[in-house]
């Protein structure tokens, strides 16, 4: 055995490990501290990002963010609304240095996003759809959402002109406030054409239940419903079924006109590029977190699909008139008196609940003319 061979003492090893630890700690902190013009953005989807639906609309905005110089976008699809989303956020933050996260599904907010925002106070969490309140939720979290009920109201106007049976159908996932708001806006839009129109609602129970959604569409058509719209994550199969059975359909989330060349009337689409850009710019310029970001047609958060063949000229004219009022901010969808479908007055005569009114984000009723129960 050679006496010159070097045997590291325990102290040497500890010294070495300590030094390595400090370096890596700095390694972790330094880039974040100096990289003001670089930003890693994490986007989390509940479904596949190319499904003609909710996640696709978000992914289109994420794709637009990739074009901003200095921005890197990480994406993860099919993350369930469980503890899994916390793990996804943690790995985006710790492994990939993401400092702005877009958890895009409704169920990600409470408790998952809130918990993570408390755990990582230096990161920004921009959640889609949650109702952020200053006294309850961390300052580094926030929510963005669009007043898509404006487009659903326009859907309703066009559907009201197109229907012959005066019976419309609405396939919804869960009775949460945003869904109910869409159902109500759609119905009010249709009733502005003919007050006798009813909307049948079917809840499927979850955001993505293709077989149940098609089954619901078929039983609605069997009941004589001749225009269907929806609030589920992937409207593709519903739109295709309506087209196959020869009835009209109004789209949701993204433009599905390619799927139903004959029956597609119009649709309510997201334009998430606007809020995404606001959040990314705020993060890059070091401005405070935008906690509450909302907008409708006027702000460019949502848009209506181009009219399809089935939309009559009278329908187009009325919808365009309403749309121009919405763009000027002079149109109020939820204007009293409005009764719910149990006969109770929910908005008193003379009361106007404008889009920005957060009361609307706690909606828990269906307006008169909607057949269904919350």
């Amino acid at each position, binding site marked *: 055995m050679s006496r010159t061979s070097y045997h590291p003492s325990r102290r040497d090893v500890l010294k070495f490990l300590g030094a390595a630890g400090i370096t890596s700690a700095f390694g972790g902190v330094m880039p974040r501290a100096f990289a003001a013009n670089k930003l890693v953005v994490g986007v989390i989807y509940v479904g596949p990002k190319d499904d003609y639906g909710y996640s696709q609309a978000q992914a289109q905005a994420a794709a637009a963010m990739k074009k901003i110089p200095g921005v890197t976008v990480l994406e993860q699809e099919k993350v369930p609304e469980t503890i899994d989303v916390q793990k996804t956020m943690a790995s985006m933050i710790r492994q990939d240095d993401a400092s702005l996260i877009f958890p895009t599904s409704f169920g990600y907010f409470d408790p998952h996003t809130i918990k993570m925002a408390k755990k990582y106070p230096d990161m920004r969490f921009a959640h889609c759809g949650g109702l952020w309140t200053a006294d309850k939720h961390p300052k580094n979290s926030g929510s963005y959402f669009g007043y898509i009920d404006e487009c659903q109201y326009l859907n309703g106007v066009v559907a009201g002109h197109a229907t012959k*049976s005066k019976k419309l159908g609405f396939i919804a996932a869960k009775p949460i406030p945003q869904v109910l708001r869409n159902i109500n806006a759609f119905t009010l839009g249709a009733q502005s054409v003919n007050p006798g129109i009813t909307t049948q609602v079917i809840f499927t129970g979850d955001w993505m239940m293709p077989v149940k959604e098609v089954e619901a569409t078929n039983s609605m058509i069997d009941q004589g419903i001749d225009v269907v719209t929806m609030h589920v994550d992937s409207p593709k199969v519903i739109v295709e079924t309506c087209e196959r059975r020869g009835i009209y359909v109004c789209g949701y989330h993204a433009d599905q006109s390619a799927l139903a060349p004959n029956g597609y009337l119009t649709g309510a689409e997201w334009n998430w590029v606007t809020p995404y850009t606001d959040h990314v710019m705020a993060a890059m310029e070091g401005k405070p977190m935008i906690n509450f970001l909302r907008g409708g047609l006027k702000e460019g958060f949502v848009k209506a699909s181009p009219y399809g063949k089935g939309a009559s000229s009278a329908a187009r004219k009325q919808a365009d008139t309403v749309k121009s009022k919405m763009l000027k901010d002079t149109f109020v969808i939820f204007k009293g008196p409005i009764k719910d479908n149990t006969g109770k007055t929910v908005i008193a005569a003379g009361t106007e609940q404008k889009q920005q009114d957060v009361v609307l984000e706690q909606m828990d009723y269906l307006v008169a003319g909607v057949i269904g129960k919350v």
Partner: protein
Amino acid sequence: MDGTTLGWWGVPIAILAGAIRVGTPFLFVSLGECLTEKSGRINLGLEGILVMGAMVGYAVSYLSGNPWLGVLAAGCAGLALGALHGMLCSLPRVNDIAVGIGLMLFGTGFVFFLGKPFVQPQAPTLPALHLGSWSTSPQIESALQINALFLVGVALAFAMHWAFRSTRWGLVVRMVGDSADAARAMGYTVNRVRVLATAAGGFLAGVGGSYLSLYYPGSWNEGLSSGQGLMALALVIFARWRPLHCFLAALLFGGASAIGPALQSVGISSGYYLFNAAPYVLTLGIMIATCSPRRSLTSAPGELSVTR
């Protein structure tokens, strides 16, 4: 109400139509599993095979423009996965249930990876046979729009029923499943029969998957199957390994899936979560009902690892 509506009559019609439309994949998967289990193995990987069949069927139909080619390709993909399961289980001391679970997880994950580019495009779907054109009611007409695959499945149920009783092949499969020792004594290679039975079962499950993506609901999506392959497993036990009972059970499960939406469409909306859960509740109920300690699983193949 005007003349075009059915009102309450819509419910039984919707359940009947749903039984046929939703039940067809159950029928194929359960017939395939019936064959596999008759040979003495359980293939728990059917969920993975079903999803694989759905994706391959859709992809081939989209790329070739011929949906029937898609059905065939889906069957072949199922055949390959079934054969994989069969051959892995032929190795000494390999547990078929563990392999099945592995195959299910691998199958679904692998399919989602491969199927990504096919979520968006629209593939040509299978045509329907219009058996209801005699009726003036559009609802009955649409309820009787039946896919040829359903009729194939029904014919297959009868054919398998006959084959298990009166053909040499059928008896060989049953013997291998009931007593491997007897089969060996008769000079049959137990593993070969089982591999073939599992592969054929995989073929049927693959075809069942292609029905999902090419006919009803008729679109490839990652949430397409929602556990139907697993429910078909319960269905085989419920049907006591009898092909004709598989057919009835598939209709029952299909009908149960249609109850929720059908009742909501006539305005019964309370408890829709429960109605939507009807097929799963039915599965549980059946499991409890059929597992009485005295008359348990009377016609179960003797070599099945769960009953042995």
